[in-house]
């Protein structure tokens, strides 16, 4: 019955599957933000929202001093902070929903808002 390996429809299926595969890498591994807003909190309290598609530099006054947060190309990062370890700066760019960069000594958090901010994981 099936002695031929590839039938006409198979070529279409393979091409479409490979195109979908490449597109998935391009979309989900590109580093671009899927959502447009970042939220900054100081000492746990809401400080402000940032529009990720407007390139800007924001100075946030925290417990130790001023942290500077930069928004560029749909992503955000800490570029200056008064802490000693600079872990917030070393976190680098945050872009996906749910990703955070936090300066704990200065009590400043930067989080990209995701589509459903209520849950990270649900377990039964």
């Amino acid at each position, binding site marked *: 019955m099936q002695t031929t390996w590839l039938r006409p429809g198979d070529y279409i299926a393979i091409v479409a599957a490979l195109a979908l595969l490449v597109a998935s890498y391009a979309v*989900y591994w590109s580093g671009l933000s899927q959502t447009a807003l970042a939220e900054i909190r100081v000492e746990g309290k809401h400080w402000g929202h940032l529009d990720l598609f407007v390139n800007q530099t924001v100075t946030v006054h925290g417990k130790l001093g001023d942290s500077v947060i930069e928004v560029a190309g749909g992503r955000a990062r800490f570029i200056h902070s008064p802490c000693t370890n600079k872990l917030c700066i070393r976190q680098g760019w945050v872009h996906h*929903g*749910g990703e955070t960069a936090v300066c704990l000594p200065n009590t400043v958090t930067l989080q990209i808002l995701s589509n459903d901010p209520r849950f990270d994981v*649900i377990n039964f």
Partner: protein
Amino acid sequence: MDTNDKVDRVAGLPESAIPMLPGMLPVTLPVTQGDHIIAGLAALAILIHVAETAIPSPLPGVKPGLANVITLLALLQYGWSVACWVALLRVVVGSIVLGTFLGPPFFLSMSGTLGSLLVLGLAWKWNECCTSLGAGVGCLRFGPLGFALMAAMAHMYGQFYAAYWFFIPHDGLFTLLPLLLTSSVVFGLLSGAIVLLVLRSLPQRTPQKADHESN
């Protein structure tokens, strides 16, 4: 193969061996040849499914999916409804055997299987439309490799979105999707190749109308 072979038998026991209270009526389940085929294929699929858990996986969700070979063989030889029975029996009984029935892995498996059965049904209908149009018309029929690839992709998408909507509604999950899709393309083509090799050794058979008649 005689599909009109209906057998009246109560689990192979003589009627006298079954304890009856006054007023009870014996229930007989006629077993058709189609039932035997489905049961045999499903048993094979469950065996492969359970054995496959011994293979280590680099990522949760990346499996060779070899039991799908049985589903595809059922589709190509006996039709879509037999394939549905085999696939759903495999998911339910396999999860009972593995101890994950009604847990999160069961729902992921079920959603993936439902997605792949839907896509297989559509592709099967497409092939049937091509056949009914007759020879000479340029219609792109699918072969086993096409079926296997599309079923694997649909399975992965069904599982992924079930996980995203019900278990991990975190956008970071999408970073995993390209890797999962890569594995599904690779293993889908592998299953399709296995199906082709198996079909060469089996006697020629196209699905009959009588295959999905039951009782």
